[in-house]
């Protein structure tokens, strides 16, 4: 659930564009370099982008009595890092802003910052740290993507709180109010997204593990171990 068109006043919509644009540009540079150097990753890149398309179209009901949708960005973040994920998110967010009146063009900067950059960045850092610490791969994917999903909506709440501080209690009070709406609703959805991402990653390990080694997602010894336990 992205921030509606026109719902961020100046200077906030500009600020979020200023933050997002350099990351998107760096992501495009990284993407170009990766695609020209390693052509074999293109199908996997398509899967990561398609995964964002599918997951962000599913509006799921939550325990709070509201619906929201997962982001699907955790998988791309783990495979390709947050900068490339931001580029993939722009595609999805533009589609939804232009054809579905969902999100918006003036709020695109803020929505890319939450869904395409900050959430994925947290997932990426978590994944790398946990895999260094030797956490089980699928548990790691589950947690990293669930956290990315949830953090996305915590950031959305913060973005709205900064733009609409409460007359009493200021930004903090607004943050609590928006957080109750977004972050609480998102908890069951984040869990679902983590589980789905872990499952699709299992199939990637099964059929195309060499690309994962190539992208430094897994070491070749970790892949061998995973394949042994799979049988």
């Amino acid at each position: 659930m992205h921030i509606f068109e026109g719902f961020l006043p100046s200077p906030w919509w500009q600020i979020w564009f200023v933050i997002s644009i350099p990351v998107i540009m760096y992501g495009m540079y990284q993407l170009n370099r990766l695609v020209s150097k390693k052509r074999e990753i293109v199908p996997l890149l398509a899967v990561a982008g398609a995964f964002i398309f599918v997951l962000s179209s599913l509006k799921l009901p939550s325990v709070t009595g509201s619906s929201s949708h997962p982001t699907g960005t955790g998988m791309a973040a783990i495979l390709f890092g947050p900068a490339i994920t931001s580029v993939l998110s722009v595609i999805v967010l533009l589609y939804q802003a232009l054809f579905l009146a969902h999100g918006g063009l003036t709020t695109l900067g803020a929505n890319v910052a939450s869904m395409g950059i900050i959430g994925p960045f947290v997932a990426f850092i978590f994944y790398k740290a946990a895999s260094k610490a030797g956490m089980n791969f699928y548990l790691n994917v589950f947690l990293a993507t669930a956290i990315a999903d949830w953090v996305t909506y915590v950031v959305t709440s913060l973005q709205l709180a900064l733009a609409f501080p409460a007359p009493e209690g200021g930004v903090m009070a607004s943050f609590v109010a928006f957080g109750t709406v977004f972050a609480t609703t998102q908890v069951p959805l984040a869990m679902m997204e983590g589980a789905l991402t872990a499952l699709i990653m299992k199939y990637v390990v099964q059929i195309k593990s060499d690309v994962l080694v190539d992208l430094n997602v897994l070491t070749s010894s970790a892949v061998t171990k995973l394949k042994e336990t799979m049988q």
Partner: protein
Amino acid sequence: MKLEYLVGIVVLIFAAQFFYGLAANPGSEFGGADGAAEDVIAELDPDYEPWFGGIGFEPPGGETESLLFALQAAFGAVIIGYVIGYYKGKGESN
């Protein structure tokens, strides 16, 4: 198959939280959280009017909107299925 079972359990937990949500919020239509956030904005700043809008296509109603969301999901699902099938077939023929 172990992971598939665990995912199945998560799906069941998800269904359970939904039914709990249904019982705990009688009469709720499970509208979007973005709509709920709009209500919060209306409370915090009753005079706020969205200052921009009208660019892009706005679905005339729920039916067209659900079509476009379904197309979005179908498009993504076709790509995922195609690539996974392609890799699998390629792996088996080697």
